[in-house]
């Protein structure tokens, strides 16, 4: 094919022409095959030259353009836009960097710089000779987002996406929304309770026509990719009819003979097989825990809304993006860890918060009044021997906040904080200060010398080598020992496994880049929010939920996604499926297909990112990257090596 190539060599004021003889470069390349016109210009990027280029391309019907100027990082897109304005495909433009990589780099050697510039321009011409017009790969994108998890982060993201105009499927595995925040009363930072915050969010969620909330719902299958995920959701019934009589329901709960530990209260209380977590919870409809139900029929006798005929349903949903807001689990101490499970008055911070919730007038646990409380920090976090090396971030502030609250609420409370260095970062520092002023005692140990909890003479004693008082051994008799437990990833990672979302060193979901892309995952179209990505307080979870909502929205809003066309291609005649490319690809972009009676590899164009990692592994050399084929590479090398 006979090419008509235009070459422009830039003086860049003098930045190039002071060291590179640009006229010599022009003369050296004007005779190259396919070069139709060659010019030098004072500033290639200047408006006047851009106009001239457009004119040249149009009048001479150029089909390839090279500009030799500064780094492509500065002006590749500028000149691509210029050729597009002239009606030429932008991939028919090639940039040669003769400033950063020639005139400036070799300002000490003008002859050398000029010679190098000639080679660089010739190699760009060689490349543009083979350049083909390319169109971006277009993928349809559904304006719908599936949000997994209806805790505060998931609900907040749902509201945001719904208001922005997307359809939202909010999928909650539990039967009630609100996640962990439902379990807290007084929240840090505001005067609100967890219940109040959830009420505000829930009302907005259910009021918005764009949001469909599913509870008792679990994603069990997933196919498709960004723009068009197809998920299958299993919905476990509540075994209750929607229009419920409240009194009858209350009776049904009363008559249920089953008693099992109530996970909502971290097992410090029991609940029935028909239950709600607390009165007025959302959705305001109890549920029958069918696993633990004995089907005795007692509830049916007092309540006509019970319906054991409800069946598990499966729904297929389609969404352009998936947002994961699956939350965390509180760390569960091991049997005997600081006396947990062995000494009767050792509880975790989440349990303690529920104890405070159920205490009125007097703070009591198991019928005994509590005055002296020992808090042991960093349980399950910053482990010296265990797996969890990370700090759980929220616990210091949360614990001190709780300690202040109860000190103000109940008489005669003495708080002893056995810590490893208090981390009330930011504005939470003022609580630490306040609690010290209220007379709370802080005792600090080294990470490898944690305090010891012992039972002696009917008393629970906490001992510590306090580094704040020259490592003296101190002991405190405690009515209650509170283990300040950290956050761990959800035990059940079925959703992570299903969606192939990678986990970090701390086993939480991993973002692509903490700073550049903090809510996106390597799986295109899947974003992560809240504590599913790592420990956070509520405000931080909200920020990440809103940030994730924005990224998901950007993917689904336009209805169409444009993906770079510079992807890998398979030479069908050479390929004899060996699977090596599939192994090498970090994105699972390859699939095995039947073609002309043999098995070959096929590139999924919406998944391939054009990194080229597959290229060198193919034993048949059947793989090429568009724009970087063997012939292009070899001709570039030829023009770099051949004598000027």
């Amino acid at each position, binding site marked *: 094919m006979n090419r008509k190539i235009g070459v422009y060599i830039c003086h*860049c*004021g*003098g*930045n190039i022409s002071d060291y590179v003889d640009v006229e010599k470069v022009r003369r050296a390349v004007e005779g190259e095959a396919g070069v139709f016109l060659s010019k030098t210009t004072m*500033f290639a990027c200047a408006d006047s030259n851009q106009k001239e280029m457009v004119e040249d391309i149009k009048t001479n019907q150029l089909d390839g353009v090279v500009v030799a100027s500064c780094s492509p990082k500065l002006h590749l*897109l500028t000149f691509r836009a210029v050729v597009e304005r002239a009606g030429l495909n932008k991939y028919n433009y090639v940039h040669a960097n003769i400033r950063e990589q020639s005139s400036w780099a070799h300002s000490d050697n003008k002859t050398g710089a000029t010679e190098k510039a000639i080679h660089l321009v010739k190699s760009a011409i060689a490349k543009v000779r083979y350049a083909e017009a390319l169109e971006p790969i277009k993928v349809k994108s559904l304006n719908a987002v599936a949000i997994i998890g209806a805790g*505060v982060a998931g609900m*907040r993201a749902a509201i*945001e996406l719904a*208001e*922005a105009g997307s359809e939202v499927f909010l999928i909650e595995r539990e039967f009630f929304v609100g996640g962990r925040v439902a379990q807290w009363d007084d929240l840090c*930072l*505001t005067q609100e309770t967890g219940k109040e*915050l959830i009420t*505000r*969010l829930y009302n907005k969620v259910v009021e918005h026509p764009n949001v469909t909330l599913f509870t008792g719902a679990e994603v069990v299958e997933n196919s498709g990719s960004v723009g068009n995920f197809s998920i299958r959701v299993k919905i476990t019934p509540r075994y209750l009819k929607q229009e419920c009589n409240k009194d009858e329901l209350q009776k049904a709960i009363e008559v249920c003979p089953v008693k099992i530990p109530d996970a909502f209260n971290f097992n410090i209380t029991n609940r029935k097989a028909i239950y709600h977590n607390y009165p007025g919870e959302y959705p305001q409809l109890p549920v029958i825990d069918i696993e633990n139900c004995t089907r005795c029929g007692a509830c049916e006798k007092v309540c006509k809304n019970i319906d054991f005929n409800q069946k598990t349903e499966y729904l297929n949903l389609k969404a352009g993006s998936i947002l994961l807001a699956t939350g965390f689990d509180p760390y569960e101490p091991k049997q005997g860890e600081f006396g947990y499970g062995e000494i009767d008055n050792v509880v975790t911070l989440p349990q303690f918060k529920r104890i405070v919730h159920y205490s009125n007038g007097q703070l009591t646990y198991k019928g005994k009044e509590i005055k002296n409380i020992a808090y042991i920090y960093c349980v399950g976090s*910053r482990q010296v021997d265990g797996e969890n*090396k*990370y*700090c759980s*971030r929220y616990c210091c502030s949360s614990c001190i906040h709780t300690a202040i609250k109860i000190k103000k609420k109940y008489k005669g409370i003495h708080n002893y904080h056995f810590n490893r260095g208090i*981390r009330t*970062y*930011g*504005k*939470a*520092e*003022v609580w630490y*200060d306040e609690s010290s002023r209220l007379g709370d005692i802080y005792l600090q140990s080294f990470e490898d010398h944690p305090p010891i909890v012992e039972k002696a003479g009917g008393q629970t004693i906490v001992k510590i080598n306090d*580094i*704040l*008082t*020259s*490592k003296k051994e101190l002991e405190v008799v405690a009515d209650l020992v509170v283990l300040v437990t950290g956050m761990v990833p959800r035990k059940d990672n079925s959703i992570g496994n299903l969606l192939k979302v990678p986990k*970090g*060193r*701390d086993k939480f979901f991993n973002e692509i*880049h*903490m*700073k*550049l892309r*903090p*809510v996106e995952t390597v799986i295109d179209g899947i974003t992560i929010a809240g504590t599913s*990505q790592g*420990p956070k307080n*509520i*405000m931080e979870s*909200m*920020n*990440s*939920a*809103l*940030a*994730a*909502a*924005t*990224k998901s*929205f*950007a993917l689904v*809003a336009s209805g169409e996604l444009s993906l770079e066309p510079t992807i890998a291609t398979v030479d069908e005649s050479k390929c004899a499926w060996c699977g090596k490319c599939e192994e090498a690809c970090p994105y699972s972009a390859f699939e095995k297909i039947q073609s002309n009676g043999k098995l070959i590899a096929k590139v999924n164009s919406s998944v391939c990112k054009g990194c080229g990692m597959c290229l060198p592994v193919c034993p048949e050399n059947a793989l090429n990257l568009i724009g970087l084929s063997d012939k292009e590479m070899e001709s570039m090398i030829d023009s770099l090596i051949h004598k000027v």
Partner: protein
Amino acid sequence: MEEPVKILEFDVLVVGGGIAGGESALNLANLGYKVLLVEKELSIGGKMILLSKVFPTLDCSACITTPKVSEIARHSNITILTGAEPLKITKKGPHHFEALILQKPRYVNIPDCTGCQLCEEACPVSVTDEYQYGLVGRKAAYIPFSIASPRAAAIDIENCTLCGACERVCPTQCIDFTQTEEQIPVSVKSVVLATGFNLFDPLKIPRYGYGKFKNVLTSIQMERQLAPTRPFNAILRPGDGKMPDNIAYVLCTGSRDKSIGNPICSQICCMYSIKQAQLLMGALPMADVTIYYLHIRAFGKGFNEFYAQAQDMGVEFTKGKVGKITEKENGNLILRYEDIETGKVKESEHDMVVLSVGVIPNEGIQEMFNNDDLQLDPYHFVDQSDILASPAKTSIEGVFVAGTATGPMDIPDSILSGGAASAETISYLRRVTS
């Protein structure tokens, strides 16, 4: 008859072109909204673009910032004004704000400047370089720093002798001393405040001797020494150019200190000090680094592991309160501190001391708002009116806040907060159209 002033219209005014403002602007622009980004410095990129490497991953700050910055600079939906700030923002009604932007003259026509630095070479004047935090000089005609965006020269008119040498060598004649201050009226539908933070000025703690003892420097000065665009050829004492081998860090300088009016923890100093300590151990393998701390706040993702890594590398952590710093004749410094573990007052000698300065709110944001009350929190950061459910909301409807304007936070949190502000802005803007 007066000519009617043509008012420029945008969807969103973003005040501050650091990483939080940049993230908000990009998110909004990518969805088709027209954004006006106003930055008071000569370059966008905020404080982050000037950092060395960032914790806890140690990837280089410039590498992360520059692609974002060029994406912002190139975006067809973003208009950038550098060397500019809003004088007044007036709410005219729902989804309608009018702002008056003060554009200070740069004396350089940005689009024509190629960044060739010939003017810089020609300029005879040398004054203190604020982008290197006073460690070296710069010319009166200068490019702020090598990775600045726009990478265009500026004239420091206060220090210019009007000799005209810069103009004479400029190949594109982009220098223009006829430029004057402009006040540009704009009309926008909403505002994002991403005005960032200030660093604590340690001159306010005279007992540390900053300013007097030349080998006492701030953490941002050390940051510059460690950055790829650093001022010296190596890590050196500013007092005499000696390569230090025993460096101390004083944490909580200007944080958790009611006596200077800042009771809160600055959230980032522990980690950036630990990072600098690690980088110093790499750059000066023979050097000892001691960090004097009260508590180490290594709370974020990967932070505690990063702290442990520094301990393994041999960084010394001393739990102690530094009282006073004095200088010896050879420029070395004596730190008097209370060793918390023994309860005793001790002294130690170091040849360089770095003050890990804290995060202080920016002034003057409240005053921009003409007839509405922008509320501040007790520490003078922008108050988040619904901090738990809508952390980007402020006391004025339609005005959102991002990044460290609300309080101290690290880079990942600032970026998330920038994302949150853009999300809230989008739904606010949509409420008007529907």
